[in-house]
């Protein structure tokens, strides 16, 4: 049986800057907690490995306060077998070092052949925890991998590393190893209803820091100290404005895809009269000249 551990973080989507109060803290309503998209992809990789090899068990591990359980349930609904949650209020926003130490303690209680984590968390954009943990465990580490395939005996893994411009490294490493997963062609699955129902019946194993002797770590001096927190009003982002001649669905597509499209140019055809008509229409629609030409006719 191949044991796969997936580090699954619940991230805070800071979708709004309007909720910042005077102390520089963000209003709770302005935060949406969701699974880290990269960790979802890591879980998807794990589930695909599970489908490849005959026997495998996928275990989610996460640290943080109680709210994290919601993200873990989502992971269970996607198809993970078990979930372990190191639960403590002091883990609200730990530094990467503390996160790594805590994860290390959790991982040491488990047997594993492969540990997967997302390339980075989209809230703090750190991307170091995977490397820290692999160092602490003295495991082989590869970053930004995708499309992991296990050798039939489960002793080796083969994968691509994602480079710039669509280039790929094909690499192979011995197991056990820790891999951080990049967004590739793989799309994380959306939970089925059966998955949700099974997940709702499963138990998320909740463990306390005292059981692992990392209480002192949480109470001790952090490696990184926050001396002052000030969140500046961000520069107004240049919004992509799609061509207003497009239909709503096309514009939504464009906005959602980040507007990677060339602006449509317009060429006019027809008799001189038609051309003039179309040109005036264009000017009016873009509010370059005022409407009300009708009365002049």
């Amino acid at each position: 049986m191949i044991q796969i551990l997936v580090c699954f973080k619940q991230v805070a989507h800071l979708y709004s800057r309007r909720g910042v109060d005077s102390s520089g803290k963000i209003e709770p309503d302005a935060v949406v907690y969701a699974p880290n998209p990269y960790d979802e992809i890591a879980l998807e990789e794990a589930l695909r490995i599970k489908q490849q090899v005959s026997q495998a068990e996928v275990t989610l591990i996460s640290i943080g306060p109680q709210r994290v359980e919601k993200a873990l349930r989502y992971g269970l609904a996607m198809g993970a077998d078990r979930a372990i949650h190191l639960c403590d209020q002091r883990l609200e926003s730990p530094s990467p070092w503390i996160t790594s130490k805590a994860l290390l303690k959790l991982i040491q209680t488990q047997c594993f052949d492969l540990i997967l984590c997302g390339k980075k968390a989209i809230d703090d954009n750190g991307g170091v925890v995977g490397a820290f943990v692999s160092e602490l465990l003295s495991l082989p580490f590869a970053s930004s991998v995708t499309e992991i395939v296990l050798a039939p005996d489960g002793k080796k893994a083969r994968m691509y590393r994602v480079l710039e411009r669509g280039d790929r490294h094909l690499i192979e490493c011995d197991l056990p190893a820790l891999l951080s997963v990049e967004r590739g062609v793989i799309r994380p699955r959306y939970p089925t209803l059966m998955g949700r129902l099974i997940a709702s019946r499963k138990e998320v194993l909740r463990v306390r820091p005292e059981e692992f002797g990392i209480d002192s770590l949480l109470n001790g001096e952090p490696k990184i100290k926050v001396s002052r927190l000030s969140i500046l009003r961000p520069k107004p982002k240049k919004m992509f404005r799609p061509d207003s001649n497009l239909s709503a669905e096309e514009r939504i597509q464009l906005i959602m895809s980040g507007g990677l499209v060339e602006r449509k140019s317009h060429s006019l055809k027809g008799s001189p009269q038609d051309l003039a008509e179309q040109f005036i229409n264009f000017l009016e629609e873009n509010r370059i000249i005022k409407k009300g030409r009708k009365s002049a006719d």
Partner: protein
Amino acid sequence: MTPTREIFWNIGDVRTLVHLLMFIPLFFLLYGLFFHFRCYRLGRGGKGFDHVLKRMVSLFSTVFTHRTILKDRYGGLMHLFIFWGFFMLFLGTIAVFIQDSVLRTLLEAKFLHGGFYLLFKLTLDLSGILLLVGVSMGIYRRYVLKPSKLDTGPEYAFVFFLILLITLSGFSLEGLRLSVLKPSGSFWSPVGSVLGSFFESTLQENWRLAFHRTLWWVHLGLSFLFVAYLPFSKLLHIFSSSFNIFVNSMTPSFTLQSLDFGSERFGVNRIRDFAWESLVALDACTECGRCQSACPAYLSEKPLNPKKIILSLQKRMRKELPFSFGQSLPRDLIGDAVMEEEIWGCTTCLNCVKQCPVFIKPLKKILELRRHLILTESRIPLEIERVYRNLEWFGDPLGIGKINRDELIQSTRIERAGNEGANDFLFWVGCQGYFHDRNRRTLIVLFRLLQKLGFTFSVLGREETCCGDVARRTGNEYLFKTIAEKNIECFEKRRITKIVTHCPHCFNVFKNEYPHLGANLMVSHYAELLKESLEKTPRNLSSDLTGKVTFHDPCYLSRYNGIFSEPRRILKSIPGLEIVEMSRSKEDTFCCGAGGGGMWLGRQIGKKMNEMRAEEALITKADYLATACPYCLNMMEDGLKSLSKGVALEVVDIAELLDRALV
């Protein structure tokens, strides 16, 4: 001598033989019907037999008046003629049978004689003419006019031919009999006596007798063939459509059954996943093609045709159960009988359901298939998956986030919900209203208007989430249920009982679907509210606002909830405006294309529905295109823009027009 029917005249004593022969067509009829009945038993249990009395009333009032069929004038009249002609002749035949077999042997009594018999004859003659007219109209439409919604296969021609032959041979028999017997009162059988005098002038009497004898057997044979052929042909609809009206006319036309989360399979991917009532509906299709010619997806050349879906499901159902009693392996429907693109082509506009004369409800089947794709297989179009994630984490389909809902409140200074007792109602803004620039403009105007009209109300602001309409229409029952339960909890916590919505989609789920989940709400759409207010207290409306206005009915108002006179009443109350109608309006309105997830699904195939509708609006030469739905408003504006006709016609919400006119 009193006039009476000479049964078996000129034929000899073949009564017993005929009675024995009768069992052959009856056997085929019953065997065929039994086969179809076994098909329905493949389905899961449902409730099609409660309220039997009400269902009978619904059945007879539909069948005898043709109220649904007559929506199409030509086809409706044609069918009405055939139906009544056929029905009366059938009753006549039964009467003759009763007279001859039952009454004669048992009671030695006769009722087909004297004045009643003459009336009987006249009725049957007229019914025959009615039937001939109907059949001729049918043949003319199907094979000369050839509308694209009708198939012109040989099986239809055969049925027409059969009915035609039976009727004509019946008339000829009557004529031949009259020409020999020459009874008094031949005036009462006009066709028979005309034919009789024709035969008399052309044929000798012994020839007529021989001809009569032959034709009698031909007529009998054809009638038997008709009965035996019935369950294996399109004529089945006589039984299956009637049965379907009985079973399905009472069920709501769009509200889906809430899902049993304890079962193993969700939605439909096999014939056996359907409820048995749905299987009856598959058999009931008369292939009239009305759903097809009403479906916006089909008309805009997308790979969806509701008629085709019903027929291919019907084919699969019949294949699932071979005529023998063996078992066959159930096969998946999606990807085989129905393609994924077809399932996602639907905008849930409900037109197929409203147009179907026999209550088939193709939309519900499509939604069941969607449920399977989403809930069981998680095969989701990318755009819709994004919507689901946004709904689940952010609470709105666009992923903008609840806190941003406060922006509208801050700009209008409307009270946030809190002390409901003081206010008339809660105004439910909806995601489109909060987050779309154009709709936000509408809402600012609408709020101002409501205040001018003297209403006090509050809004939920950041506590509002999506109503769940998108999730339900795209098949994600889990998400819908989660969202709806959260909303109901919020209403209960705040003791909210009266809600007015801006979006017809929110209006529809609150009004028709939340009650199934235990909500107790009084819901109205702002069009109803404005109309009521204008009627209660007449306002001084300026006549400066002039021009023609055409109203685009949102599907979720007009078809789903029958609200189409209210917005028109509002427009009519503005003195300077003249209402002009588009070719498709009120309950027959044409979808803008945004419903049922259509707003987010990138449908690149075929024409664009909003452009088609915008063109329709341009034909009216109106100055304003009014509507009462945020989706429709955007789709229409975009449609006009992409036709480069953004200036010709201004798209407005009815509230905006009323606000401009209100002094």
